[in-house]
Each structure stands twice: as C-alpha cells, then as structure tokens.
C-alpha cells in the first residue's frame, strides 16, 4: 500500500515523499520571523527564502499537514488516540523523553547533511534507485544496528 502511494506521488508530482523538509521549513520560517537579517545573511537559510513566497509555502509542508490529518484519522478509527508517553516499563518516562529529544536532534542534523531523512532520502531515493538514496538507507540502518547494543536497556 505504501508503495502504491509513493508510486502515485512520483506519477503525479515527479518527486517522492518527505518528512524532514516540513520541519526545515518551520525552522527557516521561525528564524526569518525572529531574526530576518540573520536569516538573510546566513548561507543556509537564505537558500530557502524568496521575496514572493513565504518559507512555509512549500509542497512538503502541505504534505506534512496531510500526514498529521491522515494519521489522526487512522488513530481515531482504530481507537488509538490517547495522550501518553510510550516507553519500556523498565525505564522512566523522563528517561524516554530525554532520549527522544536527543534522537530528534541527531536526526535533525543528519537529515540536513544527507539532504533528507528516512522518507525523503532513503525511501524515496532508493525507490528511484538513486545511488545516494541507497547509501543513506544502508548508513541509517547499519548505524542503528551498530549502536543498538548500547541502547538495549532503553527498549528491551
């Protein structure tokens, strides 16, 4: 099923799906709002700022809004809507959240270096047989397996 959606996405738009792109747009928009001069002078933010379009006006931001809505719908139908922190009962809630934050930060840095995350670079990249997509896919999963031993108390 996911494959058919991804195929439809390529057929309709000529590009794949992504997730970290929307987060990047949010960061760019926030920095542009708070410190417009800094955003304009920075070599990175300025790539994504133009005079005619708001930085949030990108395909991936609209896609992410859809993702939230679609996931909410599925969760509602299945009765999974509930505000809670999911964690291994052997660790505290606080510990889980600290490591979730660290994981998010690492993903934020990594996804910018590799120009995409598991969806944009690995999944959508590998689906069009991109060399970089395959390399990033193998690096992500290889590294996760390699480090899994050190994080085993967190999960098992």
């Amino acid at each position: 099923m996911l494959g058919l959606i991804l195929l439809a996405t390529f057929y309709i738009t000529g590009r794949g799906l992504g997730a970290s792109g929307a987060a990047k747009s949010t960061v760019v928009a926030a920095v542009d709002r708070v410190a417009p001069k800094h955003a304009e002078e920075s070599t990175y933010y300025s790539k994504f700022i133009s005079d005619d379009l708001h930085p949030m006006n990108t395909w991936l931001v609209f896609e992410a809004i859809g993702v939230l809505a679609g996931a909410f719908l599925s969760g509602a139908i299945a009765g999974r809507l509930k505000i809670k922190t999911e964690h291994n009962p052997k660790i505290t809630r606080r510990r889980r959240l600290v490591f979730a934050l660290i994981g998010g930060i690492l993903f934020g840095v990594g996804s910018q270096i590799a120009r995409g995350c598991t969806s944009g670079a690995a999944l959508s990249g590998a689906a069009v047989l991109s060399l970089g997509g395959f390399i990033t896919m193998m690096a992500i999963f290889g590294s996760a397996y390699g480090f899994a031993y050190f994080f085993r108390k967190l999960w098992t």
Partner: protein
Amino acid sequence: MGPLIPLHIIPETWNHVIAVLLGMAFGFIMESSGFSSSRKIVGLFYGYDFTVLRVFFTATVVTAIGLYYFSYMGWIDMSFVYIHPTYLTAAIVGGLIMGLGFVSGGYCPGTSLIGAAIGRIDGIVFTTGLMIGIFLFSEAFPVLEGIYEGTGMFDGDFLGYITITEYFNISPHLFIFGFTVVAVAAFYFTNLIRKRVKPVNY
C-alpha cells in the same frame, strides 16, 4: 503521460491540494501499519518486530517496479522524475548520525509526526528535537558547508543526480529483480529470527 504536474497535465494550482491528499494517504497507511509506536519501530533493531523492514522493502520494490513499468509503457517520462542527488561523504555521515538518532529516539521524522498526531508525547518531543537539530545545523553551516556541498576537502563528492545502476553500469531491470529477491529472502529470514527472539509486549 506523467509525471502529471511537471508536464502541466494537472495545473500547478492543484499542487498543494494534492500534497495534502497524498500526505493524508501516507499518514493513514503509516499509522495503520503501526508506525505511531516507537517500540514497534525499534523492534527491527532488536529482532522482535520486523514490520518496518517489510513495509519499507515492499514500498521501495513496488515503487521501483511501478516506475520502470510505467516508463516502459510510455506512461511516465523519467527525465522529469527527481533523482535524489549523491554527495558521497554527506550521504554516509548523515546516515550514520540518523541511525544513532533512530535507536536513541525510536522514531524517524515521518513516524514521529505520526506518533504526535495520535497524542504520543515522545513523538512531539522527538519532532521538537528534530527542529532543534535543524537549527543547530543551519547555525553551524559555515563549518559544514564543505561536506554538504561537496567542496573543499570533500571536493569530488558530488556525483550528480545519478542512479545506482548508472554508477555501476548494470541493467536497472536486473538490479530491481535482484533487489526483489533480496527483499523476499529478508522477509523469510527475519521471520525465523522473530520466532527465536523473546517477544516484547507493548
């Protein structure tokens, strides 16, 4: 003839409506596959749940076969399809950092959004971390520009918008066939592993 929007068969105005609709389908399927649960996702790395591997492999294979079939039938012009560019060191280093983040945070950016959508606080915290990470990268960009752009000491890293089959000069059809065989073998062996590993309830 596709892709529909780059070829103006569907007008550009519809682009964002389609983005929301495709996003909804993506989010719905990911959530119903169980990707809102970090403990289920991480099962892949500890051998108690291989759903991620199955969904990921199937999606890649179906899309790759579909695209080449569409192209063969003349339904899609592959020259309009965006190929993720290859920057060698960046692809490896970025991937290694993301893998560490994966096993620490239990989510990736897409799945954390899905967790957040159904009320998982760890998903919301992960997404917040993601934005902090992007902010840190952006602020440190002058230092990281070389690896990102493939310049300076990373000169020659940029190999273009190239596919793996072009790079190794093999037939894409043969490669997709081989990849499918690997996927089926992986399903079989991971299933054997899952039966041997102590189940985790979540």
